[in-house]
């Protein structure tokens, strides 16, 4: 699966595209590791833009949880934004919507972590 990234001010946004399941979750964790390390080093939140994620399995959700626990252990924060309807239902059924900060839009997710990031987002 593709994992692109972009920054708004100092906030990093990573965007997985496609399906995240037991076939590719190990590669996803490897791809994610440097982004997570960078954010935690700089004391910034990491935002997952899931607008391109078509499906996530239990293995994929566990990857997100492991990343969140890793962030929490270093006083970091992980935020989720822009779920597709199917993935939003999976979050609800798995109750991951109760353990993650989930926002319907990228703007709201950025606003929850940094006003500078929102300004950067609105400037385009």
């Amino acid at each position, binding site marked *: 699966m593709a994992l692109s990234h972009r920054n708004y001010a100092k906030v990093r946004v990573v965007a997985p595209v496609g399906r995240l399941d*037991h076939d590719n979750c*190990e590669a996803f964790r490897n791809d994610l590791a440097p982004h997570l390390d960078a954010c935690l080093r700089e004391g910034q939140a990491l935002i997952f833009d899931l607008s391109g994620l078509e499906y996530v399995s239990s293995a994929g959700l566990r990857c997100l*949880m492991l990343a969140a626990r890793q962030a929490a252990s270093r006083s970091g924060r992980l935020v989720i934004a822009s779920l597709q309807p199917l993935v939003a239902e999976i979050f609800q059924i*798995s109750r*991951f919507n109760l353990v993650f900060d989930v926002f319907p839009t990228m703007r709201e997710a950025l606003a929850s972590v940094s006003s500078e990031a929102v300004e950067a987002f609105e400037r385009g």
Partner: protein
Amino acid sequence: MRVRFWGTRGSMPVALTAADVRDKLAQALVAADGRRFESFGAAYDFAQQELPFTLTHTFGGHSSCVELETGSNEYFVCDMGSGARPFGAHVLARQGGRPATVNVFMSHVHWDHIMGFPFFGPAYVPGTTIRIHGCHDILEQALRLQQAPPCFPVPFDQLAAKIEFVKLVPGETYAGGSVSVTPKIQRHSGDSYGYRFEAGGKVLIYSTDSEHKLENRGEAEAFVAFFRDADLVVFDAMYSLAEVASVKADWGHSSNIVGVELCQMAGVKHLVLFHHEPSSDDAAIEAVLRDTRRLEELTRGARSLRVSAAYDGLEIDL
């Protein structure tokens, strides 16, 4: 093959409280909306056909005990949770004084899976044969310990039945009479074992007290192979996936989501959610069932997977 659920609750038995019964009754009266019933039969039909399951039933109940009826004269049962007490009464009634032969398959020896054995009526009947199968070395020790003073007044050695312990090896298939069984090791504190039963061309998987981490590809593939083409999978769905992945990680239990995924990958026909969390009331379990059916619908491949939630008294014919 008929599968009969005598105990379906995880960790410890639960019962409806007086307040629970009163609330169900009050909700049923509201649902009746002033309707008059001329007879008990008319009221029964209304309850059966028009009221939701949670108003007319309860999921129960006893801790793990699931019977597998194969048409053989012998009995086959998984685990001896508190459901073993009504199961024992069923055996005694059916035998009508004739001694029975009961084959027990133990997932593990945690208390909720053995607590019914001291109350298993056939154990007190001379001439009865009870064969207790399992993969743990400490199976006999655990059953003796729970009947040793000061925990129970009747010592194990005073039981009248002939009790044999049969050690099984994971991955090996044992054929006895009309049934073959293959155990599989599962992730749980002190290990647990799932069982694949095959009889009359039908396959039942009993897989409780098992935590899954499907990002481990080898583990996922091993369980898919174990579940492959089963007619029915009885699956530990005690917690939500979020709980299993966070505060209840390594507690040795699984979720409805993992149940659906494994069953879909293995081409299973029917998934039964089992080992319900004791703090979940009927409405909560029904909500989990509704969610699980929705997930199955969202992720369905070429063939559909039937999803049910186990309750004490449920019977499923395969």
